[in-house]
């Protein structure tokens, strides 16, 4: 009996597998797509080579003065020369190690929180949150324990931006959670207060409240009582962003099924323990992306303190571009600023995506 022998398989058509196949499927699958691809390629061709040319190939990297900016492209000499001012503002030169040390301590101190294997995250984190601000205040401001005082009016540059952002985040998150709980509360008076607060702060632009804090707040306070300008700005940033955090957290609270509340109550937990042990951990996990987005917004919003004359990162760059010795450097300055802001914001968003994946426990409804 003859066994039937199958012929060997024909190889797939050359145009549907391999690099060619990929190209055809993804770039040239029809006349319209081909047109789009060509258009896209043209766009890339128009943007990318000139950009690289300007930023790297034709750029000046070395020198000290405006006269060293002789080539066609960007003049990074400007950024290099003013780098110290961009980072530290008017912080005294010989004291800048204190800022570096504070940043280093923050990074080293917070590092264990990002190590998955570390067990006592909660306890360690709380201790860190209690100790670090005092340490940072001592290092940055000083005035006691052997460090000379550097008043906040001399703070500036990226350092000031980071300080405002860090304080803003640390203050806005707890306040925002409380506000969200208040908005979901059964107590009508509390609810009304929280709703009013949240809607007010979400309704007005940040620069009007910053402006108010800078010129009007002292009118509201008893005579002789004065708050530091930076402190006032931070307070406003905290209150403003807390309202946004509150709305994000409220979304998480609403997504927790009623059964969870009832189960917690059935176990005899009171309000705060029910919230703290059962509801909030689940709700916060759900809204991590929203919270991180708010943090990114907060980080970007710190640039608005320019309106009240604080020398944050953006303002120090803007001021430097107005220096007659470095005229015509706006593009370089703003591009540098954009890159720095972008690295921070993009970094945070990438980290949040990772965190989200790691915390994903499959309880999606």
């Amino acid at each position: 009996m003859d066994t039937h022998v199958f012929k060997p398989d024909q190889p797939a058509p050359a145009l549907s597998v391999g690099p060619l196949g990929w190209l055809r499927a993804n770039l040239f699958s029809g006349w319209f797509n081909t047109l789009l691809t060509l258009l896209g390629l043209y766009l890339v061709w128009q943007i990318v080579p000139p950009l690289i040319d300007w930023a790297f190939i034709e750029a000046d990297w070395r020198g000290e003065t405006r006269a060293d900016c002789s080539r066609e492209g960007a003049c990074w000499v400007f950024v290099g020369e003013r780098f110290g001012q961009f980072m530290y503002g008017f912080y005294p030169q010989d004291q800048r190690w204190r800022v570096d040390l504070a940043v280093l301590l923050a990074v080293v101190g917070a590092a264990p929180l990002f190590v998955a294997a570390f067990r006592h995250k909660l306890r360690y984190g709380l201790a860190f949150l209690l100790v670090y601000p005092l340490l940072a205040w001592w290092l940055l401001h000083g005035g006691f324990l052997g460090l000379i005082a550097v008043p906040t009016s001399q703070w500036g540059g990226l350092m000031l931006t980071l300080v405002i952002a860090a304080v803003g985040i640390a203050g806005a998150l707890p306040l925002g959670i409380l506000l969200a709980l208040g908005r979901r509360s059964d107590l009508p008076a509390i609810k009304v207060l929280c709703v009013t607060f949240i809607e007010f702060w979400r309704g007005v632009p940040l620069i009007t409240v910053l402006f108010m804090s800078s010129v009007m707040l002292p009118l509201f306070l008893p005579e002789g009582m004065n708050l530091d300008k930076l402190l006032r700005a931070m307070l406003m940033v905290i209150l403003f962003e807390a309202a946004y955090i509150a709305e994000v957290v409220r979304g998480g609270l609403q997504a927790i099924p009623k059964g969870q509340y009832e189960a917690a109550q059935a176990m005899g937990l009171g309000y705060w323990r029910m919230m703290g042990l059962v509801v909030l951990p689940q709700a916060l996990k759900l809204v991590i992306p929203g919270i991180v987005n708010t943090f990114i917004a907060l980080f970007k919003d710190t640039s608005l303190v320019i309106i009240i004359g604080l020398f944050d990162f953006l303002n120090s760059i803007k001021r430097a571009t107005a220096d007659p010795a470095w005229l015509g450097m706006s593009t370089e300055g703003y591009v540098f600023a954009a890159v720095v802001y972008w690295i921070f914001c993009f970094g945070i968003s990438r980290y949040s995506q990772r965190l989200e994946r790691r915390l994903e426990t499959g309880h999606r409804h």
Partner: protein
Amino acid sequence: MPVATSPGRRGSLLSDPQARAWIFQVVAVAAVVAFGWFLFHNTQANLQHRGITSGFGFLDNAAGFGITQHLIDYSESDSYGRVFWVGLLNTLLVSVIGIILATVLGFVLGIARLSSNWLIRQLATAYIEVFRNIPPLLQIFFWYFAVIGPLPGPRDSLSLGNLIFLNNRGVQMPAPSASEAYGPFMLALLAALVLVVLLSRWARARRLATGERFPVFWSSLALVVAIPGACVLLFGSPVNWSVPELQRFNIRGGWVVIPELVSIVMALAIYTAAFIGETVRSGIQAVSGGQTEAAASLGLRHGQVLRLVVIPQALRVIVPPLTSQYLNLTKNSSLAAAIGYPDMVSLFAGTVLNQTGQAIETMAITMSVYLAISLSISLLMNAYNARIALVER
């Protein structure tokens, strides 16, 4: 086993949840009221003690300063109250143009993010990741100081056929104004539109009755072009054009779009479009594939699937975050103050505040305006959500 103390006997008030709730609320309200009163009292005392004028009487005083851009008639002898309207309209102008541009760009981006074309997808992703991670204020500065600032002056403007000019004073273009033929032209246009409506009704009725299609679109287009066109031939152009001309300092005449407006609109539209793009993408992705397939199996054509099935469902997801982006854009328009565009904040909470010295009144008015805008949009949103929710269940 020790006898449990009954809740009624010890610490009677604090262990009764209802009483506790009451106390808690009363204390909270009292604290807020006391705090508010404290602030109010301080302010009152401070104002009185320092002899600062208060009240809203200043709104009727003559302003006495000029404004770069005013959509309503304004001269220096007008009152501060009129300055308020000028500022408000300038704010709304930025918001409206910005919202339109951002929406168009955002929808294109959102669709591009889902394109089957790899290159287009990557380009859209790159755009979104770049622009949403840079502070809007920085983008405004970039446009104003780095893009428009270095443009040539009015005498060396880049021009398009000597009609449209681009320079560091902004964009100048011919401005239409009504001529004698304007009335007849509008009448003709109206007549054409009425005919179009009648025609499409008739076509629909015929289709329902006989199943025959009538080329409604093309015939409507012909009507709209032909009737007013005939009118132009008869009576002449409905508008006169005032063409910009170079004078000693500036290009005069025509419409001028000031560079401050261009910068802020460009920056805000580009920034907000990145967010809208993401919103649109997630909205379209939220419509399950089964819907598309079901629609296709009913025999709907591709365009009809999108128009009748996918988009209505996607909009339900898109619209709420979209409105909040619109609100953000409106609030961000206050950044105009940083480059001297005469918006609400820069004009009213800035110049007027300083000329009159009445910080509390001007700030209160400014904040109330923004609050009113966002609250009314919130209310509309809630109404919309309620309607959608009914459809859903």
